[in-house]
């Protein structure tokens, strides 16, 4: 497999501009002759579909939801970064670029990140013009806050609902194109495979989730904006339907998978309450600005939080990281919480939680100020836990939240299958080994509004895909494979429910491929996952039939892919024998327990190629060079 990242030469500041000029264009009259399939309608998918429609392409957009507005981008709370420097605090495109490369622990491509930082400026302009009601100051200009440990205020936000407002902006632009006839929308349609004809991605096969019918759609290019795979852990902050299917099927058709082990565990989530727990709820990171994180010093503490005297509390983040304290980056804060819980000092019924205490802040600033800052978050917490965080400390615990890994793409966002483009969280591109807060929304929209619409034109103008329609034999074959697989799932009629197996997979992944990983644990997981996969194919039960709305069948299909994907994820984690960003290998840490990178051997993207169901995947690597940001050990002491 040849990996050409197609990074433009020349100075990084000019790279994107030069590249845009050098790319071939499709003439306006020819655009409507090209059909582009966009799978997914989140920030990346909706913004791409809308923009491609505006440009005049014939776009088909697919979502498994009942409406494009339901995509999980909607749940992002905090904000979106942009190097506007409206606050005059020294921000710049270069600083955002620098922070992102460093924050990603030097495992991302410099050129991609620089382009992202440049485009961040256009995104905010575009969103404001669309009517996104960002927070404003009394003078009427846009407000910013600092976020995720950044030293400048560059985060734009709309209350705690930034993702929602940005998605609605993209959704509305998309609906406008649907009305104009340039985009055809397919809701409750789940993509089950990519169709490759003569080495080019030429279409997809979907299942209509209401009728069970399998349909083929042909196109000149295919775009996947299908999100991340945190639900491989079963419990995550992702929405219930988020899954790996689209990118996994693309992988099995020849698209390489990059850095699947890079997952982000968010430190401030509401802990698990019981076995019935279906998902985890994130509490905005901003809470750590005023909350103090602690656990009791003694193991098996039984007193209530308020009855534990100050001297018997361990404010472990402040103790270990005196300069950053409670504001230490996500990966570090998460890992520290796990450590104290593993020592038996965790709080709550399950022992899997730490306190986030606002007593000091309330004492210092008054309850009203705290209510003004975090009122809606406190309300969410109270609604879920029935505890009043103004009176008792919150309990929090880390939870899987975002996946930096994904399908490998070049600078043009094209995968190793010509014509198959991947955008947003579904690709591996810009975040390296750890994503900074408020950067996910930025990347999704950058890809969809401002990168893909140019690069896909270049692909079409140079590759000139010939005519192919769904009568081509390749579509029929894929349809049959899908029908066969569905039949198999329905015929097992075993004893175990889909969710029970998913929960078991989640436990394996959380224990062995979660916040910290070891060679021994990963090897164990690599033995248990295939066994669980066999158990699934022999003993799962999927009630109902195919020709109906069947949520069990949907879940079973997604879990079947997670069960295959999980193995690749562990394999990648085992191979990467270093600690970096969200990937912490216990064997590789400094004497005081910090992540220890190995730049000599691992300053590369791990790229996995599928070689068939019986063969092991083959590992390739794309070397990473750092010409602008000097490789350095992150320190938050």
């Amino acid at each position, binding site marked *: 497999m040849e990996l050409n990242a197609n990074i433009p030469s020349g100075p990084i500041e000019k790279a994107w501009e030069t590249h845009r000029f050098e790319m071939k264009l499709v003439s306006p009259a020819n655009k409507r002759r090209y059909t582009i399939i966009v799978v997914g309608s989140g920030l990346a998918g909706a913004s791409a579909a809308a*923009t491609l429609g505006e440009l005049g392409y014939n776009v088909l957009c697919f979502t498994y939801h009942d409406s494009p507005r339901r995509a999980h981008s909607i749940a992002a709370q905090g904000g979106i970064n942009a190097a506007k420097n*409206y606050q005059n605090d020294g921000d710049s495109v270069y600083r955002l670029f620098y922070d992102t490369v460093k924050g990603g622990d030097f495992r991302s491509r410099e050129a991609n990140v620089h382009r992202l930082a440049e485009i961040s400026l256009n995104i905010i302009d575009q969103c404001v013009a*669309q*009517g996104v009601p960002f927070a404003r100051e009394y003078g009427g200009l846009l407000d910013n806050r600092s976020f995720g440990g950044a030293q400048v205020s560059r985060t734009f936000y709309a209350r705690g609902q930034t993702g929602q407002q940005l998605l609605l902006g993209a959704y509305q632009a998309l*609906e406008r194109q649907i009305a104009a006839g340039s985009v055809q929308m397919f809701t409750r349609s789940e993509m089950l495979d990519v169709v490759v004809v003569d080495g080019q991605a030429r279409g997809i096969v979907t299942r209509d989730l209401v009728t069970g019918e399998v349909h083929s759609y042909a196109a000149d290019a295919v775009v996947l904006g299908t999100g991340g795979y945190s639900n491989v852990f079963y419990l995550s902050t992702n929405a219930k339907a988020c899954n790996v299917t689209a990118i996994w099927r693309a992988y099995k058709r020849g698209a390489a998978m990059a850095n699947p082990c890079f997952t982000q565990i968010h430190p401030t989530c509401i802990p698990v309450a019981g076995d019935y727990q279906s998902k985890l709820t994130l509490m905005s990171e901003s809470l750590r600005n005023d909350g103090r994180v602690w656990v009791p010093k003694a193991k098996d503490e039984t007193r209530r939080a308020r009855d534990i005297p100050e001297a018997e509390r361990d404010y472990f983040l402040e103790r270990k990281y005196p300069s950053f304290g409670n504001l230490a980056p996500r990966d570090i804060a998460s890992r520290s919480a796990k450590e104290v819980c593993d020592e038996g000092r965790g709080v709550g019924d399950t022992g899997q939680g730490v306190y986030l205490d606002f007593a000091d802040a309330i004492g210092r600033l008054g309850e009203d100020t705290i209510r003004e800052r975090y009122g809606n978050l406190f309300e969410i917490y109270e609604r879920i836990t029935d505890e009043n965080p103004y009176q008792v400390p919150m309990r929090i615990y880390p939870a899987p939240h975002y996946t930096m890994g994904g399908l490998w793409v070049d600078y043009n966002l094209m995968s190793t299958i010509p014509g198959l483009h991947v955008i947003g969280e579904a690709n591996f591109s810009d975040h390296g080994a750890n994503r900074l807060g408020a950067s996910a929304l930025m990347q999704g929209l950058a890809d969809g509004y401002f990168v893909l619409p140019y690069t896909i034109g270049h692909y079409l103008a140079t590759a000139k895909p010939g005519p192919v329609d769904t009568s081509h034999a390749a579509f029929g074959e894929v349809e049959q494979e899908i029908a066969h697989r569905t039949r198999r799932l329905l015929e097992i009629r075993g004893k175990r429910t889909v969710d029970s197996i998913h929960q078991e997979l989640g436990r394996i992944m959380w224990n062995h491929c979660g916040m910290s990983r070891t060679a021994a644990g990963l090897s164990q997981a690599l033995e248990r996952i295939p066994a669980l996969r066999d158990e699934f194919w022999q003993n799962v039960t999927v009630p109902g039939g195919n020709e109906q709305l069947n949520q069990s069948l949907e879940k079973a299909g997604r879990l079947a892919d997670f069960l295959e994907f999980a193995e690749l994820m562990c394999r990648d984690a085992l191979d990467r024998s270093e600690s970096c960003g969200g990937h912490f290998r216990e064997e590789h840490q400094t004497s005081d327990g910090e992540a220890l990178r190995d730049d000599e051997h691992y300053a590369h993207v791990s790229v996995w190629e599928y070689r068939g169901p019986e063969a092991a995947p083959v590992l390739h690597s794309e070397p990473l060079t750092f010409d602008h940001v000097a490789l350095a050990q992150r320190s938050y002491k």
Partner: protein
Amino acid sequence: MNLTLHVWRQAGPSEAGRLVTYDAPDVSPEMSFLEMLDVVNERLIERGQEPIAFDHDCREGICGSCSLVINGVPHGPRRGTATCQLHMRTFSDGDHIWIEPFRARAFPIVRDLIVDRSAFDRIIQTGGFIGVSTGSAPDANAIPIPKAVADRSMDAAACIGCGACVAACPNASAMLFTAAKISHLGLLPQGRPERTKRALAMVQRMDLEHFGGCTNYGECHTACPKEIPLETIALLNRDYLKASLVSRD
């Protein structure tokens, strides 16, 4: 605690539906309402029966997927709370709970508790946007917007498109949904140029989709998980009246 559920089951859009009674034993008060249904479903599946189909996704009260009319109230008894954020501690041991789908001609039932809310998308298509193509935007700070105006716009923009307003309204009116979008966009300077066109088009589409008219009951606002203010409906009325008088179309 032990509960008895009366759940609407319907195999398909054109099949007859009925209320079926299920026992929900050993429900923990810490469970969310949907987790309680998950547990009931797991038991059904283990017995080889088809689970109760219901829409849900983010379970954080923001995607607008979850629906359900619980004891006659969309999203259940707790104000300003979507079904997915409702917890079982709101109920008591021995309670009977009626769970029905959102009912409206414009929201045909797909299966069990799942309804088709695509009419909302079609309302948005007619004018629920600002017609600005990618790349043509001026600098974000070029037009100052008073904080109070931006805040009011945000109050309306918080709508999650769940359809509880329609389900709660005895007329199955979509006025609150439509008004929320008209207010969100119309209050902002960026949305002004299309304000007339938007009001006329969105109201026309709303009527075409067979939503009912507003009789100012106020049920919509009470059921709304985001508590979208009723004054948005007044704003819609005013915009529509003004648009009818000034439009040259």
